[in-house]
């Protein structure tokens, strides 16, 4: 393979852990091959024992079966070893994943820190203060510019407002009150009607 890998390769992405996993897996492959081999000999041994029995060589057949039995036990043992290897390689792979998770958390944490560092509490206070000052100044300016209104004007404005409200308010009760109360106590309605013309007079003053 040397010819193909002759040129300089970029940094290898294979870690030491990968190599360890690979070695474990290779061990597992070897065990599997071993199992295949034993399974094959088991089958042939059985056939052989049958033939020997047919020939009447009972002793040899028995010997062969003993060997077969022993190999069957070996097969069981290799199964256990295989399991061990599998667990170990899975453990390593999982540990690698955990490492990646931790790495990810770390990066996220760092990013958050950087963003937070960009925001300074004092800066925020200063900015808010400045905004408030600017607003006050703005109010002052607009007061100065439109501040032509005297106390009297203010009162007039408020009176006008009150008048508008009153004009709108009585509309609802006036019809009901007129119908019902006009029969029972005409004086009260008269007082009301007298009050209404008074107000515009007060306004004109």
């Amino acid at each position, binding site marked *: 393979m040397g010819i193909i890998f002759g040129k300089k390769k970029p940094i290898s*992405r294979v870690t030491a852990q*990968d*190599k360890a996993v690979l070695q474990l*897996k*290779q061990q597992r*492959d070897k065990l599997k091959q071993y199992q295949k081999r034993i399974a094959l000999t088991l089958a042939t041994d059985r056939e052989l024992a049958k033939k020997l029995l047919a020939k009447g060589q009972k002793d040899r057949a028995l010997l062969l079966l003993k060997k077969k039995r022993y190999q069957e036990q070996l097969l069981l043992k290799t199964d256990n070893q295989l399991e061990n290897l599998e667990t170990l390689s899975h453990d390593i792979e999982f540990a690698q994943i955990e490492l990646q998770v931790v790495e990810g958390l770390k990066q996220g944490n760092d990013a958050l820190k950087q963003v937070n560092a960009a925001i300074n509490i004092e800066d925020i206070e200063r900015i808010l203060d400045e905004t408030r000052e600017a607003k006050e100044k703005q109010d002052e300016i607009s007061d100065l510019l439109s501040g032509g209104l005297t106390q009297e004007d203010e009162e007039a404005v408020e009176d006008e407002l009150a008048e508008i409200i009153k004009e709108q308010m009585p509309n609802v009760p006036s019809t009901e009150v007129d119908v019902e109360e006009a029969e029972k106590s005409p004086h009260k309605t008269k007082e009301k009607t007298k009050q209404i013309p008074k107000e515009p007079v007060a306004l004109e003053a």
Partner: protein
Amino acid sequence: MSETEIEWPWQYNFPPFFTLQPHAETRAKQVQAWKSLILDYCKKCKLYLIDVREASNIPLFNNSGINRKLEQTVIVSILSELQKTGHAAPIDKPKNRWEIYWHTLEEWSSMIYDYVSNRGLQGSVLTLYELSQGDDVKDEEFYEMQQEVLIKVLQTLEKDRKCELILSDDDQGVKFF
């Protein structure tokens, strides 16, 4: 390799098929037929390697039924034609031993990478043995792929940075990304 149920095309029992035809047009058709026959045959028999010197042992090049053999030089010229499309490659200088790719290396590599992505095996290490002989790949087409071919396939993947081969004396594996 088992010679089970190969459906020979009609040409296979047609004696002139085993002699290179002088007429250019006929020859082109003949070579074309041979090319697809070789690939089909290798695919069915899972044959990754053809040794031209022993070609007469393969029924493909030796039809004992009609007592016809394909000349070694003709075999080489047809294999050279296959080489142009990436379906074969000589592995020695005298062009005696040929690797046959009934799927091109690129096709194989995408097949293997599909398998890897379907199983979420990116980032994990696999041995070459489990990739070609393991129980998990029994139903895949690349099951029992020859190691040399497998390595070449993985090298094409490596160029795309989709895997990295780990090849040392006792380690033979690949890490996918």
